[in-house]
């Protein structure tokens, strides 16, 4: 299928891109990797009048840890996250997420930032980065603003971004000592969206008690979800089997899946429980081994 006609602009700088968005308003859309937008345009679910291609703007593919923050640029692709030694060594939650997003060909073009703006509740990055307590930086005509990912993700395919803003950075707190993460996904086949997936990031004190826990849920609600009750319950606890079981139940209770071809509501909720238990165990193992 062929998308509806549009005008194409490939600005060479961020201010130019923002100016184009400002000038064209709701008509315009940013295109990054195109791996969600082009399929949507081919089905005529999206019909932007102007595409502002940000791929020719230099310097937007940074990926580095600076002063306790991992900074992910808007042109960092899933494949770069998967291959980066920094991500592999320090952010197992993100490395595992990258390796299960779509398929290797889509991962070569699609970006992490594009995933967040697309805001598909079945997108893997939303859940993983909620668990990691990420923040996003938006740049518009009036300058920059920063907000918690949780406040950015408003509803299904809906975020707090304005039509004249560009997501210019994702900020993830660097892992504390004795911390670890994991991402577990159930999918019918490679390249499919999750039936359910869970991302966790946990930290412990020297006695093995949990000091902070992030639990993000994928594809089981109108947006990527944070399992807040499970997170609060884990604080101060050692990860004994009963503790993990209870956290799994709380995460399942926080989910609100709908039945579809990937599974029934009950099945998906139970998968959230199981994946939460397993992801927490894996993350704790990593945290306490280091």
């Amino acid at each position, binding site marked *: 299928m062929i998308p509806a006609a549009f*005008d194409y602009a490939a600005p060479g700088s961020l201010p130019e891109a923002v100016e184009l968005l400002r000038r064209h308003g709701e008509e315009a859309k940013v295109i990054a990797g195109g791996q969600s937008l082009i*399929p949507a345009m*081919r089905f005529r679910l999206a019909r932007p009048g102007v595409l502002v291609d940000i791929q020719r703007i230099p310097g937007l593919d940074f990926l580095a840890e600076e002063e306790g923050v991992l900074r992910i640029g808007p042109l960092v692709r899933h494949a770069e996250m998967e291959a980066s030694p920094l991500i592999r060594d320090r952010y197992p939650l993100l490395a595992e997420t990258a390796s299960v997003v779509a398929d290797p060909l*889509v991962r070569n073009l699609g970006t992490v930032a594009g995933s967040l703006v697309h805001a598909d509740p079945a997108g893997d990055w939303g859940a993983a980065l909620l668990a990691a307590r990420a923040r996003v930086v938006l740049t518009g005509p009036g300058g920059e603003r920063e907000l918690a990912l949780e406040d950015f993700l408003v509803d299904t395919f809906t975020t707090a971004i304005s039509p004249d803003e560009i997501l210019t950075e994702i900020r993830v707190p660097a892992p504390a000592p004795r911390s670890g993460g994991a991402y577990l996904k159930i999918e019918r086949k*490679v390249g499919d969206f999750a039936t359910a997936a869970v991302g966790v990031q946990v930290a412990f004190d020297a006695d093995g008690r949990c000091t902070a826990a992030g639990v993000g849920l994928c594809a089981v609600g109108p947006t990527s979800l944070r399992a807040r009750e499970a997170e609060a319950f884990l604080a101060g606890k050692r990860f004994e089997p009963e503790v993990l079981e209870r956290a799994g139940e709380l995460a399942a209770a926080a989910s609100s899946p709908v039945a579809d071809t990937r599974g029934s509501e009950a099945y998906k909720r139970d998968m959230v429980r199981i994946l939460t238990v397993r992801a927490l165990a894996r993350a704790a193992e990593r945290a306490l081994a280091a």
Partner: protein
Amino acid sequence: MKRELTLTINGQPYTGVVEPRRLLVHFIREEAGLTGTHVGCDTTSCGACTVLLDGRPVKSCTLFAVQAEGHAVTTVEGLAREGELHPLQQAFWEQHGLQCGYCTPGMLMTGAALLERRPDPGEEEIRRAISGNLCRCTGYQNIVRAIQEAARAMRGAAEPVSAGQGAAGAASAARGGMVP
């Protein structure tokens, strides 16, 4: 609004007058007349349209031609050199890595990119690399075997070794092939 667009495909410039909505795969097949790259779906699912963009395999049905301007595109027609099949093409032939052949151009491009990056991939790695390329005929066994065979051939050509080392390499590759 149509515009004149020049793309470098297999090192050659191709010019067409196209709308921005022209997908790269259609530019390749229709403007450039290179019909080796296939279209197998409407949903970015099959990988039959795989080409290399600056050396990395991507789905050319999910990229506008204008986005590829100034980048190097490689299609299946760019694999053979002076009438000699690429070792991967040779291996697909010899190992029966295809039946209907519809997925083959995509498989070859993904395989070529893998071998460029990883001259000695294990079976798991090969299966992972081609997991975005669907084949409805072969069951993948012979495709994996063909990529392994090509890897051996290319390593052999790149670094001539003594008979002893060559045999050891072949043996370890054969073991790799039996991992379940």
